[in-house]
């Protein structure tokens, strides 16, 4: 495959290119093993600790209410399944390598939204990565019960670099739920995700991360949204991590396309988070929002970015708020608005602060204990963007937010 060789050449040249954001990760300290043995396994057959974790994250381990499941443990794809009805309608859930083998057209989407040589993390994913999922929804098909994708790490020293591609064809709809987690072992997770939302299609992508204080995480996600398409990205970061850097981007290329990127971040212990959301408004009438809510505690450091780039008649809003819960916690909010036309209407608000004595006393006077009051404020603070989620994902996210408020409290 000549085209693949070409990509790999570009990747090799980018292997030492750092990301402009976040802490640098020395990729040389991790082992790159390629693929493990394959073998079909159900979620419920996962090793007990991982299974428990999956349940905490709200994964439907019995697969009762989902339209499909992709499961990858360390470097093995254990399950890629879609329910019969959707399989017959042409919905595809498979590993990326399998998709490239089976369907010639998949290469049209491969490294087309995210450049392979963006930085060393994308480069290493192409050169030494291991799977990732490919999901395709044909025109007009609406997958409401979510497809769930689980990417778990349980072996020490695992470097899980996955490449995911999601294509939602014209007028189609997909609710996708991704859960990524690791047991407390030193590990690295890179997740490249390329989203293609075609004309009048809708993709709701909910991602929940539950890492360990020893994990480095570098997701790379870009969505391309065509005319009338809607991309909803809802991200929750629940547990400690060593460092996390991501700057998911939506390019609204079609007229009247929309994107809503929400991040709910819990930065605890010694974590370093550098998380943002970016939307480029290229299509006339495009609109979107980047929203983030971060709770920073212990000695964690959180950089909260947001960027709106107006290139056409469009409307965008950036709303980025951080709550610092301990004296050593640090936050930095960096909202950026860029416009190359007077027709783009871009606004932003950003705030960092702590819970004031006044707020706390008010709630104490209403009958809440200090613990309850803190958790109420944190929980309320985090609840944002939920109304944009379809009912099938909303209750799921509300449970995750409850868990987040509990973790925030300690």
């Amino acid at each position, binding site marked *: 495959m000549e085209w693949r060789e070409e990509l790999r050449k570009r990747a090799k040249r980018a292997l030492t290119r750092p990301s402009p954001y976040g802490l640098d990760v020395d990729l040389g300290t991790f082992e790159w093993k390629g693929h493990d043995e394959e073998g079909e396994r159900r979620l419920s057959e996962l090793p007990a600790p991982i299974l428990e974790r999956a349940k905490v994250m709200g994964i439907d381990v019995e697969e009762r209410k989902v339209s499909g499941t992709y499961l990858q443990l360390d470097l093995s794809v254990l399950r890629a399944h879609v329910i019969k009805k959707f399989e017959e309608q042409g919905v595809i859930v498979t590993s990326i390598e399998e998709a490239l083998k089976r369907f010639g057209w998949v290469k049209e989407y491969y490294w087309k939204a995210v450049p392979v040589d963006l930085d060393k993390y994308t480069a290493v994913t192409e050169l030494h990565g291991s799977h990732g999922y490919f999901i395709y929804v044909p025109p007009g098909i609406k997958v409401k019960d979510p497809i769930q994708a689980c990417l778990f790490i349980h072996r020490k020293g695992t470097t899980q670099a996955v490449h995911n591609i999601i294509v939602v064809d014209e007028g189609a709809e997909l609710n996708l739920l991704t859960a990524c987690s690791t047991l407390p072992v030193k590990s690295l997770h890179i997740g490249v995700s390329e989203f293609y939302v075609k004309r009048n299609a809708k993709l709701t992508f909910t991602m929940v991360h539950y890492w360990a204080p020893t994990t480095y995480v570098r997701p790379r996600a870009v969505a391309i949204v065509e005319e009338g398409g809607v991309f909803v990205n809802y991200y929750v970061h629940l547990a400690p991590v060593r460092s996390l850097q991501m700057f998911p981007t939506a390019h609204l290329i079609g007229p009247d396309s929309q994107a809503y990127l929400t991040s709910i971040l819990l930065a605890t212990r010694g974590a370093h988070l550098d998380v943002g959301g970016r939307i480029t408004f290229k299509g006339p009438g495009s609109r979107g929002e980047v929203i983030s809510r971060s709770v920073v505690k212990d000695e964690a450091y959180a950089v909260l970015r947001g960027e709106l780039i107006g290139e056409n008649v469009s409307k965008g809003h950036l709303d980025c708020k951080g709550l610092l819960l301990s004296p050593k916690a640090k936050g930095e909010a960096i909202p950026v608005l860029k416009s190359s036309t007077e027709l783009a209407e871009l606004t932003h608000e950003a705030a960092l602060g702590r819970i004031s004595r006044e*707020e706390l*006393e*008010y709630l*104490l*006077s209403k*009958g*809440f204990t200090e613990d309850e009051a803190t958790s109420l*404020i944190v929980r*309320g603070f985090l*609840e944002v963007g939920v109304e944009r989620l379809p009912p099938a994902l909303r209750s799921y996210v509300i449970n995750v937010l409850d868990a987040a408020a509990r973790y925030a409290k300690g």
Partner: protein
Amino acid sequence: MRGMLFEVRGLKVLVENVTVIRNVSFSIRRGEIHLLMGPNGAGKSTLLRALMGLSSYKVVRGEIFLEGKPIKDLKPYERAMLGIALAHQNPPKIKVRANYLLERLFKKYHDDDRGSCYLEELVNDFDVSHLLNRELYSGFSGGEVKRFELLTVVLQRPKVCLLDEPDSGVDVDSIRRLAGVISKLAEAGAAILLVTHTGYITRYLEHVDKLHVMMSGELVYSGDVSILPKLLEIGYRAITKWAG
């Protein structure tokens, strides 16, 4: 003082080591509405907050009784759970959805004996349904703040209501509505201590049982409410002389 629901005896309160309330005593029976009036800075809000047990208000002398039991050493949330509710004069903005607080309050103070339609009814009665998805008290009008704050008090199913100027900055229609709620609370057996500046709200209350006038941290008058028109006419300093 048998039959008293709420009693304050010889209360002295410090704020940042300065005496703000000195030797205040009064008591309220079940279902009674008492007015607390006085010039700005007299200590009315301080008294209410001290009765609620907020941490900046140190009770250094005296006692507070609820149904005969001393509560001076209880924390604010313990007092709240026993049935004391404070409607704050200027509640702070809080970064949570208004509805979220209502739901949590409802859960806290109601077993399953009343469905969530009760909460819905209350929300409609107080005309705050349009505020539910907003951040608490952020961008609320004066009237909206007062209605919402009184709604939180009602949700607490209080035995004692400490209402700090629920009628300030509120239009006539809203005052009438708030007065209706306060009368109902009293009817249900609550003891009401109502701080008001204009006394205008009394026109719409079903009854007012006593008036307390506070000046420089002391109650200088506790008695019949019939002196209210005279008070409003001649002012606090003159009324203390006039009433002897």
